[in-house]
């Protein structure tokens, strides 16, 4: 069996020096006091999260972004990504794939133990994969990412062999995600209830205590010496610990940061980013999430958007550029791709999205929507041109909801009756499951372009038992299906890139989606906090190298 080495181990020391100053995506908001002086050991960082408090700290269970945010502090993955999107070693030092792409060998570091003393070995990896695939774990994100993994074989103490049912070009990218991080088998064995309260990993911090609705206390792992290959320094973290607080109200969160009650906040709102930039007293980290961009999917599965002319008319009519500028205070850049700008394979085509009201009107006339009522709403055969747009109040920030209102206003000029329906999460999913929507915005975070297969492959129209389906545009195109399937198993990077570009051309050219901007992921922190960076994987911040300056 010949195997091709995909990636090499990197000299850790060299990389540390290189990335110490280049903090991924970190843009000082102003002339902030530059990171000066040597790292300081000690101190407890207070992190304020605006995301919902997880019901379980183990990201294997369920698997959402809030879990990823905190899990990144105490769990580590087999591999990571560097700033350029290349896969780099983490707990696994090297990996090889068989030519048929069905067998992968991961060589693990032999000097790592979980914080409960359990050694990290191939058996542990096997237990983790089995844990993720066990229905009792109720894993969703991690489970999907390992969809093609059949089993894990313990080759030796340090070599774990993954057996796949089909080639998976996205496997490594999937394994970088916190939802597929490696936990202590002994920890998992305690059962879900206990493991949810304090999962045990190999990361720089250890879960000490979780006071529901208030905070999670993390303390330093003094024995820590791992980290992804691009980590800034060796050894344990500088911080004594982290107090991870949940402050759901964005205004309070920002006020708490201003008052010095907390050191860093996530989900910073556009107006506060603007304010912070002007005042120059806070530092911003802009780390767009990977996977899909924020876009409005047009339901092509039913009238009126089953007609490409109507879809194009909507996109031509909806004027979003000025709105994005005003509402996001210049913190969000208009996107013309369905993929996040951090995805190297993202394909963008601005020409398709130029606003043109006359064109929109012409297209609608051509499509037969010629009658207009007193309000200017078009109709065809007595059926009004209605666009039901369920909006999740949990997922869309106020600025985004305002943007939708502006789309509603501009689309109306072409004769669309956009009905915005703000709904809570349950109601929102309910509207999607019953297909009571013509347009919807649903962010999706995943590492790598394989997210396109999840979002636009016709298989994803078939709902899961829960009613969930990811292909909200209901895009059913055999040609696209074939491209996405091929890309997912194509191991040659260039060929893969070409396939994905073709796929994206089909999606954009068919006017199935109106891209808006990247999934916004802004952090603000006090200048005291230094050495923090967002992981190039799913853009969660890591505090392994962070310190609090005096």
């Amino acid at each position, binding site marked *: 069996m010949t195997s091709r080495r995909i990636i090499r181990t990197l000299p850790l020391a060299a990389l540390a020096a290189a990335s110490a100053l280049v903090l991924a995506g970190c843009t000082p908001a102003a002339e902030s006091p530059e990171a000066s002086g040597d790292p300081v050991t000690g101190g407890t960082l207070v992190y304020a999260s605006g995301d919902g408090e997880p019901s379980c700290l183990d990201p294997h269970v369920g698997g959402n972004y809030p879990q990823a945010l905190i899990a990144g502090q105490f769990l580590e993955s087999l591999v990571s990504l560097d700033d350029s999107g290349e896969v780099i070693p983490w707990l696994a030092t090297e990996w090889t794939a068989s030519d048929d792409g069905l067998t992968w060998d991961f060589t693990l570091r032999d000097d790592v133990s979980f914080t409960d003393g359990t050694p990290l070995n191939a058996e542990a990896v096997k237990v983790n994969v089995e844990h993720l695939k066990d229905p009792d774990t*109720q894993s969703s994100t991690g489970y999907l990412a390992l969809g093609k993994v059949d089993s894990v074989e313990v080759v030796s103490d340090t070599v774990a062999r993954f057996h796949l049912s089909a080639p998976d070009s996205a496997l490594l990218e999937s394994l970088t995600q916190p939802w597929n991080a490696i936990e202590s088998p002994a920890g998992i064995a305690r059962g879900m209830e206990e493991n949810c309260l304090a999962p045990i990993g190999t990361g720089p911090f250890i879960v000490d205590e979780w006071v*529901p609705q208030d905070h999670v206390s993390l303390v330093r792992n003094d024995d820590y010496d791992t980290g992804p290959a691009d980590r800034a320094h060796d050894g344990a973290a500088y911080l004594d610990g982290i107090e991870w607080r949940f*402050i759901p109200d964005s205004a309070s969160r920002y006020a708490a940061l201003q*008052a010095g009650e907390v050191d860093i906040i996530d989900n910073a709102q556009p107006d506060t980013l603007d304010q912070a930039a002007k005042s120059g007293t806070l530092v911003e980290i802009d780390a767009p999430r990977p996977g899909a961009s924020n876009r409005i999917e047009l339901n092509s599965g039913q009238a009126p958007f089953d007609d490409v002319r109507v879809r194009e008319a909507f996109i031509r009519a909806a004027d979003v550029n000025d709105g994005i500028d005003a509402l996001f205070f210049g913190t969000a850049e208009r996107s013309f791709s369905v993929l996040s700008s951090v995805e190297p394979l993202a394909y963008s085509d601005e020409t398709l999205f130029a606003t043109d009201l006359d064109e929109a009107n012409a297209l609608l006339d051509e499509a037969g929507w010629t009658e207009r009522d007193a309000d200017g709403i078009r109709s065809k055969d007595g059926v009004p041109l209605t666009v039901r747009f369920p909006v999740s109040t949990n997922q869309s920030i106020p600025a985004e909801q305002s943007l939708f209102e502006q789309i509603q206003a501009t689309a109306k000029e072409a004769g669309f009756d956009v009905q915005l329906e703000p709904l*809570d*999460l349950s109601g929102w999913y309910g509207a999607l499951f019953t297909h009571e929507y013509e347009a919807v915005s649903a962010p999706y975070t995943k590492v790598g372009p394989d997210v396109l297969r999840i979002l636009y492959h016709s298989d994803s129209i078939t709902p899961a038992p829960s009613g969930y389906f990811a292909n909200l545009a209901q895009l059913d195109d055999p040609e696209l299906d074939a491209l996405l399937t091929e890309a997912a198993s194509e191991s040659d990077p260039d060929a893969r890139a070409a396939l994905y570009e073709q796929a994206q051309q089909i999606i954009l050219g068919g006017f199935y989606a109106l891209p808006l901007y990247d999934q916004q992921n802004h952090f603000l922190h006090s200048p005291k906090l230094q050495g923090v960076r967002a992981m190039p994987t799913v853009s969660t911040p890591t505090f392994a190298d962070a310190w609090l300056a005096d």
Partner: protein
Amino acid sequence: MLWAVATLTFFAVHLVPGDPAQAILGGPGSQASQEALDQVRADYGLDRPLAVQYLAMLGRLASGDLGDSYALKTPVADLIAGQLLGTLTLALLALVVAWVLAIGLALWSTSAGRIGRAIAAGIELTAAALPHFWLATVLIAVFSTSLGWLPPVANDQPSGLVLPVLTLAVPLAGFLAQLMREQMLDALEQPFTTSALARGETAAGIRLRHALRHAALPAVNLSGWAIGYLISGAVVVETIFARPGLGRTLLRATELRDVPVVIGVVLVVALVYVAMTVLTDLVSRAIDPRIALEERA
């Protein structure tokens, strides 16, 4: 009474669209498999008829067991026990502060002239009309962001309680002050006020020793309602000030369709309400023996 509350809540929550099995498996949007859903339904007895589930719930409640949270998988009793103190502290402190503010305002406004009274009435009405969420934001903007006196979110220090308590107390004080002012003015027109003045009592003495008692009476009676009002307000206040508590627990549980937690919280709130009602009843009887007399008549 608690039984009725539990029953009502049980059926109300079961009317809510949404599959509890789904809620158990990570909430809406999770991509749980059919097997997992079936498994959970069997485990939690969700496949049994509603009546059976209802009886099972009553059985558990009767033995003091509130069940396990669907979302957190921990016993509801533990969950609530951990949150109750925070909310009660907040609500009771707010009640006390509201009382103090209301008494102060009522004493001042009844001794002030026409213009003073009009101003007081304006203050009261405005205070009573302030939505909690707005007041909280303004307080944070003024006292934390601009002045930097107080922390904008709850912390371990007492200073962290000031703004949440004020947010809850100010609108309530508006209500109470209106009520107390009216009662005081009423009391000041009663013949016993003339009697007391004729004994040489000072105007301040009349207000403190006579009118205040009369004003306090209806306000005491209102305190049971006030606790319910404050706990309702706590949903918003705890969210804004990031305080742990029942309000946030309830909001979250409702969003997640976490039936046992919703029932548990409602029961506890009802219990607090009942306790408060009994207490206010005792207090008002102590203040006013006429109540007991009237009941006998």
